């Protein structure tokens, strides 16, 4: 039994807790996101429609919040799936976390860039 | 060859307590166990462990002296009184120690350990954790053994002692998960393998309670003491003989015959269902023999219904589960069919109060030993106490022995232990050679039924005589047993055949001793000699191993504090 691996394993509460917190945010956020996009605007998907919605500061803020939450939730979820089957050593786990953080931050910046005209306005 | 300073054989309460004690004295201890220690039969104990804590309001003036008196009286005065006093005075200390180590005893509202009444005791003196006390105590000690860094060799089937220059220097064991025999050597060996319940077909004991430790010691020339005293627990489940704790009666359960009477009023008017086990078992058997078993059949009822669902669920949840799973009866709604069943071997390896035997370096504790605190009849709740008190004492004594002896046993042990391992291999080869023709399982079945029918609750000379003849014939047949499976891991065929040889020897000691003792005392109840005979028989029986059958001897009982008197309950 490789108890050395167990001995190296530290932390994880924040990941677990944030996964729950983002989950709750996403439940609320997605309810409004889905209603505002799929129900109110079903069949009406177009640039203008979206631009119109995003003209409201509330929706921009909402989308930025959702983007951050969903990225964390998704990438941490992916991390959990991966860790369940591979990468038990401490260095491997660290590298995976780092890689996922890089992906997440990059995706978040890219998302901000895509939303920039409305954030700015 | 594997070396440690102290080899403890058996991972139950006695073995672990001995190991923990010796480890505290700085000894390098190894525990060898046939199962993972937490699976030992100690864990099946239910009702509780006795100690004069005086926690119960009704028992506020309880003392170790009163406990010792009850123990000696319960033993029908065959217990060594110095040992009984030693045990009962050590009792409160070891209970508190177990509690400090985490044992989850049930509690009174003020936070103290709860105590319940038990058979043969003058006060509520039995500390308990619901009806799983053994399980809780055993796990607590396993935990402590891990904490102390004791080396555990689990799933080791120990087959014989290694004796060299008149000293015990180790054991030979079959490694069940790896296969093959290996010698474990040390400067001392503590035997704590439990009882020999499986020599009877109607036993409450675990399947591994085959008396292996007694047999190994006996075959190595150590004496067995008082083997004829076999306790029959009043309440085993009808079909499986699984134990229904005495705590069920301690909590107020009734014993009921076919007429619906609480028949114990006829036999022990004052103590009723809480008479000692020998008396209660005989009473039940008498009712059955006289046709008052339920429906005229061979069982009576243990009735708990009047206790109510809440009390049963809180105090006796485990036996409720057992009754439901194994008998299909829910004690909340129906009475439980029970029958007296072999439960405990009062006798065992002859030791002093420190677990020492006549063989230097060889100690024994627990049910496989006979200190003698139980004499002719053990009180409920005293067996768990015995394991812990005398486990502790033998661990300390072995540590003193090791520290007092010049070390360097390892080199001296190399040659004899290699020879012992070689002898085991030869013995297995001989069994597997195909020269024999006897099926060990047929012999086993015949032996266990012979013991049940000829050396049961009521005994008499003609029955025992034919029983002993059968046993001797079986012993002869066992020399020609054959083994179908010689090799490999987890070879049950080999283990069960080897253990049978020991079981027959132990059972023969029981049978011979029972036939010789021409009196009735405690659990040994002879219809042809119904009275106790203090003039001729207030003495221990000793059995010397001889290849053709035991040679009996005797030694005096230590008296001095309590005068023998008639037992009344």
């Amino acid at each position, binding site marked *: 039994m490789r108890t050395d691996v167990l001995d190296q394993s530290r932390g994880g509460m924040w990941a677990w807790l944030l996964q729950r917190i983002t989950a709750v945010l996403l439940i609320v956020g997605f309810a409004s996101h889905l209603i505002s996009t799929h129900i109110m605007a079903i069949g009406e998907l177009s640039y203008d429609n979206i631009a119109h919605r995003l003209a409201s500061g509330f929706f921009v803020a909402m989308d930025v919040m959702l983007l951050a939450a969903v990225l964390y939730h998704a990438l941490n979820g992916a991390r959990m799936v991966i860790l369940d089957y591979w990468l038990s050593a401490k260095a491997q786990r660290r590298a995976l976390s780092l890689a996922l953080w890089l992906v997440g931050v990059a995706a978040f910046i890219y998302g901000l860039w895509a939303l920039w005209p409305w954030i700015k306005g | 060859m594997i070396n440690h300073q102290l080899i403890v054989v058996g991972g139950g309460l006695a073995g672990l307590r001995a190991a923990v004690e010796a480890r505290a004295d700085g000894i390098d201890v190894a525990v060898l166990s046939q199962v993972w220690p937490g699976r030992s039969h100690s864990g099946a104990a239910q009702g509780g462990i006795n100690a004069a804590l005086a926690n119960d309001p009704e028992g506020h003036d309880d003392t170790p002296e009163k406990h010792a008196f009850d123990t000696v009286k319960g033993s029908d005065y065959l217990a060594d009184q110095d040992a009984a006093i030693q045990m009962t005075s050590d009792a409160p200390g070891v209970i508190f120690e177990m509690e400090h*180590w985490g044992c989850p005893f*049930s509690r009174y509202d003020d936070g103290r350990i709860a105590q319940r009444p038990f058979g043969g005791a003058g006060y509520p003196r039995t500390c308990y954790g619901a009806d799983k006390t053994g399980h809780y105590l055993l796990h607590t000690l396993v935990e402590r053994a891990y904490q102390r860094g004791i080396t555990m060799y689990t799933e080791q089937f120990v087959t014989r002692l290694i004796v060299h220059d008149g000293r015990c220097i180790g054991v030979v064991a079959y490694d069940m998960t790896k296969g093959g025999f290996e010698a474990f050597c040390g400067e001392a060996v503590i035997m704590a393998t439990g009882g020999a319940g499986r020599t009877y077909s109607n036993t409450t004991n675990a399947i591994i309670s085959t008396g292996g430790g007694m047999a190994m010691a006996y075959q190595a020339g150590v004496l067995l003491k008082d083997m004829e005293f076999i306790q029959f627990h009043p309440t085993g489940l009808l079909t499986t003989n699984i134990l229904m704790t005495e705590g069920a009666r301690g909590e107020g359960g009734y014993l009921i015959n076919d007429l619906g009477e609480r028949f114990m009023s006829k036999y022990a008017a004052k103590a009723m269902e809480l008479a000692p086990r020998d008396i209660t078992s005989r009473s039940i058997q008498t009712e059955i023999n006289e046709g008052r078993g339920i429906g005229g059949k061979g069982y009576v009822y243990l009735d708990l219904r009047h206790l109510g669902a809440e009390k049963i669920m809180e105090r006796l949840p485990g036996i409720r589960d057992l009754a439901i799973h194994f008998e299909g009866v829910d004690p909340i709604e129906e009475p439980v069919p029970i029958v007296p069943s072999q439960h405990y071997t009062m006798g065992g390896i002859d030791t002093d109060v420190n677990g020492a035997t006549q063989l230097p370096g060889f100690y024994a504790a627990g049910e496989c030993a006979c200190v003698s605190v139980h004499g002719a009849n053990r009180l409920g709740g005293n067996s768990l106490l015995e394991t812990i008190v005398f486990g502790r004492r033998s661990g300390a004594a072995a540590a003193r022995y090791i520290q007092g002896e010049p070390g360097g046993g390892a080199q001296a042990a190399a040659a004899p232990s290699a020879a012992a391992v070689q002898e085991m291999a030869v013995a297995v080869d001989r069994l597997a050679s195909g020269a024999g023709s006897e099926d060990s399982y047929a012999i086993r079945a015949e032996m266990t039924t012979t013991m049940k029918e000829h050396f049961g609750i009521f005994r008499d000379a003609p029955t025992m005589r034919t029983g002993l003849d059968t046993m001797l014939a079986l012993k002869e047949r066992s020399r020609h047993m054959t083994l179908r499976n010689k090799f490999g891991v987890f070879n049950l065929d080999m283990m069960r055949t080897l253990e049978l040889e020991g079981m027959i020897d132990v059972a023969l000691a029981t049978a011979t001793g029972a036939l010789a003792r021409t009196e009735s005392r405690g659990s040994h109840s002879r219809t042809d000699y119904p009275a106790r005979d203090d003039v001729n028989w207030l003495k221990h029986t000793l059995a010397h191993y001889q290849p053709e059958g035991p040679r009996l001897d005797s030694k005096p009982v230590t008296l001095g504090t309590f005068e023998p008197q008639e037992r009344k309950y």
Partner: protein
Amino acid sequence: MPVATFHIKRFDPDNDDMPRYDEFSVPYEASLTVLDGLFYVQEHFDGSLSFRYCCRAAVCGSCAMYINGRYRLACQTNVRHLDGDVITVEAMPHMPLVKDLVCDMTDFFAKYEYIEPWLMRNSQDPAKEIGQTPEERKKLDMPIDCILCGACYSTCPSVWGEGNYIGPAALLKAYRFEVDSRDEARKQRLAHFDNEHGAYRCHTITNCVEACPKELNPTEGIQWLKRAAVRRRLFGRLK
């Protein structure tokens, strides 16, 4: 006399390449437990059959097996209560095998030991018992009944994965000491379960709850541990 057909998964790593199933007919009278049946097979048909056994009264945890598609204690399972005439007996799935119905519990007990399963105290023990009210004692009722049979460990998909998850049984044991009013090693214990090979590897799949032959709820204990970690690390509460 009724006959039960035992369909037993056999595997001897020293001689076999792959497991196989052997079939045996076991006659019985009124009642027959699966463990009785295994003994009958071992004594009458095939002495090489291997299985674990000890108390035969459902308290030792030796004979946990996979019987007719469920985790059961062989000693506690009466063939009359099983559906159908064929009784399929297998070792606990997903475990390394020693032989036949005996699986290798080495890792299981290593992980049990890893969580330091003993009462830890800093203060001087009193001369008598350490007080504990019935209410405090009641919290222990569930976890102390664990017999460490390994069924929960065998059934847990988190254990199947990467193999370093300490598993439901060890975590339940950690919980047992966490909720013991007498234990004083809250900080030390946190390190055992407050990590991703500990409590957070539990995905509340609840297979362990289904599998437990003693009807305990390891998930409940593990969830409690996660909350305890949050309480302790965010709010500094020790209880």
